[in-house]
Each structure stands twice: as C-alpha cells, then as structure tokens.
C-alpha cells in the first residue's frame, strides 16, 4: 500500500503583475485503493494542485510538503516523479510535434519501468487498451495528440493511465469536453485500472456527472486555494443540488 501525502501546501505563480499566491494551505492524504474527488469552481486552484504534484515548473512551492511513501516528491524532477509512480492526466494535453504515439508510448513505458517492455506483449497491450477506449488503431501512427479532438486527447490520457499503471493517478478534469458515451468509456478505463487495487485516484472535476461513473470515497470542496469542506459521496450530491454558491459566498474575494 502506498500513501501520497500533501501537507499545508502553499503555491504561487509568477505573473507580470508579480507573485500571486494560488494554493493557501492544502492538506490531503490519499492511499492506494481510495478515490478522492476534488470539486471546485473555475479558478479555485484545482489544476494548480495537480500540476504542482506533477512538478510543472511554472508553480513555486512556498511552503508545505508532498511525500510519496515518505519520499520527498518536491525534490524530484518531473520525470522522477513519474517514475516514482505519479501520473497526471492533463486538463489540456499538448500536441507534441514529430513523435508518433507508438514511439512515445514505448519510450515512456521503457523509462518508467527501467527496461523495454517485451515487444510482443506490449503491442498486444496497446492494441487491447486502445480498443477498450475506442481509440482508432491508426492513432498509433499519428503524432502525440496532434490534431486529436478534445475528447480523443482525454481518451489518450486514460490510455496512458492503463498502460503505465501508476501508483497514484491525478485526473484533471478528464470529464470536461466528453460526450456521454466518451465519458462512459473513459470512466470504465479509470475503473478498470482502479479495480486492480494498486492505484489511488485523485479525481478533479467541476461537475458531478463523472461521479455517476466513478464512485469517490471522499469528496473535497476546493475554494480559493484551499479545501473548504470535505465529506463522503453525499457531499457531491449536495453540490449537485446546491452548486458552489454556499462556499464562494463565504470566501472573501481576493484583492
């Protein structure tokens, strides 16, 4: 069993207007087998949390800690974090020129495992995972995310989740931009992986609809850079009915 522990995390970004604090003391612990949903209004800092865990250079950690089974994640480079078992399914996956999906997936798998996957099994695994996520076989020969639709990009993120088998998956609004069918397909992918019992999931979302397919154990409401309230799945139902008004009203607007 693994534990991802975030303690009193303060994060800021440098902008043209100077340094802007975004996360203002986030504390959260996720264990293998658990699904945590982070819900919150636009701009509340959800992506900032996700990107900070993954190590995006834009974000500066001012204080607090992130550890994975006691190891200091913040001192690891981006690739080291991935190799330690963290996976971020991005809200806006970028298009990478010049690299085919096939080549990318194999290179990443090799880097993550420290050895090249057996070609025969790997090819089969990729094909199977693609078929399950209803990704056209010819995507394998296309450049990473190049020309993919929003929904296709999200499927490809989950494809990687299933192939790379991380200890912790952070899904940043994987549901946005998906129609109902795609949402189901993608959710099934996450559930398939989760059901193996070797992964903890941090599911970031703005809306509750994905929670019909992926059942959270814990729900955290994220407002203005901190967790405003937490509870069980029932909190999501409450949000569905009431929206975020109750929370945003409480929070003084930043100058």
């Amino acid at each position, binding site marked *: 069993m693994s534990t991802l522990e975030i303690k009193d995390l303060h994060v800021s970004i440098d902008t043209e207007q100077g340094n802007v604090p975004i996360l203002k003391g986030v504390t959260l612990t996720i264990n293998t087998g658990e699904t945590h949903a982070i819900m919150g209004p636009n701009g509340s800092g959800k992506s900032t949390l996700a990107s900070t865990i993954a190590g995006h250079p834009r974000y500066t950690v001012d204080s607090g800690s992130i550890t994975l089974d006691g190891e200091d994640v913040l001192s690891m480079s981006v690739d080291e974090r991935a190799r330690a078992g963290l996976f971020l399914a991005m809200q806006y996956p970028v298009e990478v020129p010049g690299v085919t999906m096939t*080549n990318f997936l194999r290179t*990443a798998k090799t880097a993550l495992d420290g050895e090249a996957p057996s070609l025969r099994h790997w090819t089969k695994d990729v094909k199977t995972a693609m078929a399950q996520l209803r990704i056209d076989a010819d995507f394998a020969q296309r450049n990473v995310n190049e020309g993919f639709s929003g929904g296709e990009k999200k499927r490809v993120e989950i494809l990687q989740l299933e192939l790379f088998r991380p200890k912790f998956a952070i899904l940043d609004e994987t549901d946005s931009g998906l129609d109902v069918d795609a949402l189901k397909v993608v959710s099934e992918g996450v559930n398939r992986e989760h059901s193996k019992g070797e992964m903890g999931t941090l599911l970031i979302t703005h809306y509750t609809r994905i929670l019909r397919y992926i059942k959270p154990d814990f729900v955290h409401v994220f407002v203005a850079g901190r967790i405003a309230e937490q509870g069980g799945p029932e909190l999501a139902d409450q949000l569905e009915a009431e929206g975020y008004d109750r929370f945003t009203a409480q929070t003084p607007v930043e100058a």
Partner: protein
Amino acid sequence: MAETTHTESTPDTAPDAEVTDLGDLDEKARLGAPAGAVDRSRAIDGFTEEGESLSTGDTGSEQLGLKKHSHGNAPVIPEASRGERRRSFDIADFPTLTGLEEDWRFTPLKRLRGLHTEALSASAPAVEVTGAGNVTVETVGRDDVRLGASATPEDRVSAAAWNAFGDATVITVPQETVADGEVMVSVRGTHAEASAQHILIDAKAFSKAVVVLDHQGSATLAQNVEIVVGDGAELTVVSVQEWDDDAVHVSSQQAKVGRDARYKHVVVSLGGDLVRLTPSSIFTAPGAEVEMYGLYFADAGQHLEQRLLVDHAVPNCKSRVTYKGALQGDDAHTVWVGDVLIRKAAEGTDTYETNRNLILTDGARSDSVPNLEIETGLIEGAGHASATGRFDDEHLFYLMARGIPEKAARRLVVRGFLTEVIQQIKVPALEERLSESVERELAAGNL
C-alpha cells in the same frame, strides 16, 4: 527570445489565385476540387502554419505578357518571375553582391570568406569516387564540351565557380545500366582558401543509380553540380554536408530531367559555418517525377540555407518537395525558399511543397518562404505548406511527466521529426551514419 519569421509570397503574377488555408500539412490541396472542399487549417499546438492552394482559373495571361519584355540588361533584382532570373556563364552579368538581392537577402555575405569577391584560385577539395563498378568516372579539363551543356549559372557565385574551376569530375551512368552499388563521391576539404569545383552527373537514358556527394573537412567552396537525368532514367542524388565547423559552401545543383524520368534529390546539411545550397529541378519533357527532400540541423552560429526551384516547363510532370529543419542554440539560422514555377505549357502539373522547422531553443531563427507561381490553370494540383514550431516547455513537461528524462525527450522529438527525410536516402549505411550525426548534434547542443 527566438524570432520566427514566416514570410509567404503569393506572386502577383497569379492575380486570380484564391488563397485558402490548407488542411493537414501532409494533405494535398487539389485543384479541381469543388470550391469550399479544401480542408480548413487545423491549428497544431506549437506550430504556426500557413499553406495555400490555388484554384483553377486562367491566371496565366499577365505572366506571359511580362515574359516578353523582360530581357535585356535589366538588373537581377527585382525579378518579376522566378523564371526570369538571369542565367549566364559570364560573371559580369551578375552585379557585385550587396545582400539586397532577392536571392541573397538572407545570406550573411561577410561570412562567405570571399566566395563572392575573390578569385577562387585555391585548390578545390579532393574528389574521390568509389562504389559502383559499372559507372564511368572521369576527370576532365575545362574544355570538355559536356560541361555546362545542361546547366547555366543563376547567380554570381555560381558563375564565378564556372569561370574558376580547374578539372571537373564527370560521373556517367551508361544507358540502360543499373549501377551495381551506390556511387560515393567523397569531397574532402583541407584548407580554408576560396576555391571552385565542378561535378557533372550524367544518368543516361533508362539507367538507374544513387549518387552520394559527401562533403567533409574544411573548405571555402563555390561549387556547381550539373545533373542530367536522361529519358526514363532513375537517379537519386544525395548531397551531404558534414563539413568542419569553419567551412563555407555555396553549391548550385541543377538537374535537367528528361521524359518519364524519376529524380530524387536529398540534401542533408549538418556541418559548416555557412552552407547555401540551390538545388533545382527543371523538367524538359513530359511524364517525369521529381522528389526533393532536405534535412538541416543548425547549431549555435550556423547559417544553413536552401533555395530550391522546381521548374515545370512541360506538361504532365509531378513534383514533391519536403524539407525539414531543426535549430538549436544562439544565432542558429536556417533559410528555406521553395520556388515552384508552373509555366504556361505545363498543363497537368501536379506539385506540392512543404517545409517544416522545429526550433529547439531560444535564440534560433528560421525563415521559410514557399513561393508558387502558376501560369496555367489547367493543372492537376498545386499547393504548399510551411510550418515553424517550437519545442517548448509544455512539450517537454508533457514528455517528462511520462517518465522520460529531459535529454531523451528532446532526442525523441528531433529524431521523430527528422527521420522522415533520412529514410528517403535508402542507403542503409548512410542513413545510419546520418542518424548518428543527428544524435551527436543534439548531444553537442547540451540539451
């Protein structure tokens, strides 16, 4: 910050040309497709992309008009049409270069080490030809009548080289002969004084050969490579520039392409301080197909320039141009200018040219100028695309977030990007060598 300029010229000699965004880079915009059926541009992250396709319609008359009265002692610049560029063996026909000329405007003349001003009287790099046993190799004097029979200089340096070279190397693939191996032409420079060189590659009718010009060492070289692709012949010419860091190389590589011939030209420019290649393919009879590929990788301070011309002067020929460049380091500069000319007579032409550049670091600059002139509407297809992309922090983050270390991530991108061109060479040993060279370039960039 890196500067990326993208210029695009739609000659006003094609006044009715309709300019539309082009779809996929690899997709061809078809003339004759119903209006509106052309794919719209799809933006690719990190890529600025431009493309153009031209609709059918009679766009030729003005061009013809221009043609009739543009001879005489007109200056080389400005040129109304690429087809009107001065061709001459007489250096006096080309005014002293100022850098303002259309075809020299990107070239840093100061770094030519005198190629445009000096006598080019030093000894030329040594030429050694190995490989095929059934191909004729001769060293001939200036007076050999075959020299200059099929290519006339188009710029001052080329004309200077024509007037200054000593012996020439003539490589002949006899009629109906399939070369029994690759013809490796090693060109080794040993000093930095300005010199001139002439090489003639003559692929006779129905012959088949691959000729590799392999430039290495140090040199300041003005070179004319004259290429004849006979009727029904199949010729590949690969020009590899793996010069030492100080080398300056200006090379005109003109090919005359005969009836039903197949000609492939591949440029690989990696080494040298300033390399400027002007490859051209001139169709002389119908039914021929030309493919022109290029790969260039500029490091800090390097200037790699390629200006090509495809001259569709006769009906029913096909051309494809694909050039790809990578840049890294301060003041790495690449230039690609692709002139495609479809003359009035060239009905049934099918042409597409594309140039893609990948900027890997700040401080590098890539110029890309596709240029399509069309004098007849009765063609199969004509299009071009040009895209300059940056490998930026977001790309890097994405790959690293999948466990791939930074250096490997950059290698992955560049290798993937450039492999397409290397694969066109079809000489396994050379492909391998060049792949390794590209890796070394990357490593040298400390990326």
